[in-house]
């Protein structure tokens, strides 16, 4: 009773503080109308910065528009941009490169990230320090990472080449990580894995910490061995977290640009030209705005579609 009466008092005071003109206006509104009043600015903002550009991009994708020639007549080209993109072998090559990068970097990050999380989850001396050290790479800017790995990969002076040479006994300048057609796709996977494994580790760690201890205690009572405990308790309990990490990294790596651009510029040749680099070149170097809009729509639909399917699978896993 006391609480209810104090709430009434507060409401009365708030009402008294509201200017009479405003109060008169608001008093006549329904709850639904007040709700709309509050969410309308946010919705307008979202429409302006998200939905409108998307619709505008879709519209441009059916035209021959070039942003560097605003005075040129705009021509409706129908599906020409889409057919041109989907029948271009260079675009398919970029998509394959992207797929290689996404699949391998995520596979390695999940394996290493989960492994590190299992190790860090145990209490040992220097635990805090090691956690911080492992987390350092993901705190760096991708542009910085791209730049300094370029130096590390230098065949004559790069630390990476010298370390490999020391271990393998080869000449450091006998191989080029970012200049060799075979090695360059792995170089970008390696750098991305170095940078983002800690992120996957953090998410896995959150999953591991959320497992109740009594599950393990019950398993021990049942005389379950370490592998059995891992297989039947740890993995299923961490799996939703792991899948969430895969979703985040998948979306992020599908549109990866900065690190790869600074590391290899898409080269040698077009060996590491991922889809986002192709898109940037078409949109802001060749200025084929209509064509690149169509490409952006295709990429958006691909990511959105795959992410939706994945989220459904993820929900299924959670419910199990």
């Amino acid at each position: 009773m006391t609480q209810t009466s104090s709430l009434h008092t507060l409401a009365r005071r708030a009402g008294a503080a509201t200017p009479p003109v405003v109060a008169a206006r608001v008093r006549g509104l329904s709850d639904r109308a007040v709700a709309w009043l509050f969410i309308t600015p946010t919705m307008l903002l979202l429409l302006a910065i998200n939905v409108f550009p998307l619709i505008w991009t879709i519209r441009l994708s059916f035209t021959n528009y070039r942003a560097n020639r605003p005075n040129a007549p705009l021509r409706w080209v129908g599906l020409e941009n889409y057919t041109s993109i989907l029948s271009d072998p260079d675009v398919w090559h970029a998509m394959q490169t992207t797929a290689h990068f996404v699949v391998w970097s995520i596979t390695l990050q999940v394996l290493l990230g989960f492994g590190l999380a299992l190790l860090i989850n145990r209490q040992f001396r220097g635990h805090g320090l090691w956690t911080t050290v492992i987390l350092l790479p993901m705190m760096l800017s991708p542009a910085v990472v791209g730049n300094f790995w370029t130096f590390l990969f230098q065949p004559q002076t790069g630390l990476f080449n010298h370390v490999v040479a020391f271990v393998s006994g080869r000449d450091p300048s006998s191989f080029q990580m970012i200049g060799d057609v075979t090695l360059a796709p792995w170089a970008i996977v390696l750098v991305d894995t170095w940078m983002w494994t800690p992120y996957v580790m953090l998410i896995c760690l959150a999953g591991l910490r959320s497992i109740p201890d009594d599950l393990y205690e019950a398993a021990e009572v049942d005389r379950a061995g370490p592998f059995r405990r891992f297989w039947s308790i740890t993995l299923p309990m961490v799996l939703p977290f792991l899948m969430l990490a895969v979703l985040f990294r998948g979306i992020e790596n599908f549109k990866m640009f900065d690190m790869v651009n600074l590391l290899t510029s898409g080269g040698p040749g077009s060996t590491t030209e991922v889809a986002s680099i192709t898109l940037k070149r078409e949109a802001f170097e060749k200025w084929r705005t209509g064509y690149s809009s169509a490409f952006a729509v295709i990429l958006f639909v691909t990511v959105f579609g795959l992410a939706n399917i994945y989220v459904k699978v993820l929900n299924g896993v959670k419910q199990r």
Partner: protein
Amino acid sequence: MRTPVTLICAAACGLTVMAAQPAMAQSKQLTLCWAAWDPANALVELSKDFTAKSGIGMKFEFVPWTSYADRFLNELNSKGKLCDLIIGDSQWIGGAAENGHYVKLNDFFQREGIRMEDFMPATVTGYSEWPKNTPNYWALPAMGDAIGWTYRKDWFSRPDIKAAFQQKAGRELAPPKTWDELKEVASFFQGREIDGRKVYGAYIYTERGSEGITMGVTNALYAFGFKYEDPKKPYSMQGFVNSADAVKGLEFYKQLYDCCTAPGMTNAYMQEGLDAFKSGQVAMQMNFFAFFPGLYKDPNVGGDKIGFFVNPMQKERGTQLGGQGISVVAYSERRDDALQYIKWFAQPDVQKKWWSLGGYSCHKAVLNDPGFPASAPFAADFLTSMGMVKDFWAEPSYATLLLDMQKRMHDYVIAGQGTAQQALDLLIRDWTKVFKDDGKL
């Protein structure tokens, strides 16, 4: 009592007006946009004379070469007001003229008595005219430039090295005159130990992201007989871009890359070349003449240790045009002041000082001076090179044409994908599409 007060007020007002005068002069300010490199520093120095004479302050916006085109073409396309004057690349002229980014200068030139005949013809065609070979001027030739070569004169003159080369090649070691000779010399130096250090044959352009490999490979292509189009039928490229000679030229560039460059030079342009040469890594370096004054002054590899030579010939002579013209940006709010700068810059005396500071003048008063060839160790080679320059397409779609060539050349030369014939055939396919989109085919 009133008189002293009035006097004090008058004196104070006078002082205020006097103090305001320099401030007013400084409030007139022009922004000049260019690339961040040695000649830009020379221009800063030169422009102090303009400020002293006109009272107009100069502000400079210099951007590294690798992002120069991106940055300033975006600025022009978005009708930005950052630059009043721009020293834009030669290939931009078509797009900048047709899209209205530059002010047409014909009337201004006529009014001020600036004659294009006073400038070297190749630079007028390359930097000022659009359409090419028509008297429509959009820029004043500002910075003449072309690709040339530097070599380690001290290594070339060492008796032990000379003897070894004589024994290997059966001729005297000298700056190469043909591409075959260049490859022979480069392969001689490749991996050789000099003063306890392993050195490499040649530095050539291989950069992928902007224009590097195109600016490099064209030097071999021109010398072997590559043509952009049929001289009798514009935009007809079949048999010219992919002629047997062009294929040989491209194959040669790849062979040179494979045999005689330092490891890791897979994405290298001007700065990497300078670094390689200055650090004593390479015997010969391809680069723009604009860098040669700085290299000549270098304490480690300059002076007596450096020599220069023009781009070697093979079937014919040709070298890639560099350099730029200076234009007034159409969106500038200080157009008259910008034109005043161009008028000042076009004067023969200013052009002479420009050359003396390290800029490459295109004015005949400088270049035709009998003392010019001897005025710097690279001056004669510069003059020769400017007589044999060829330029990339300067069409409004130049950026697309350039990126297509970057891709095809890098795919073949660096990544080793396909053959030279396939690379050039694909290039024709790409370029044909561009010209069709532009309604030129």
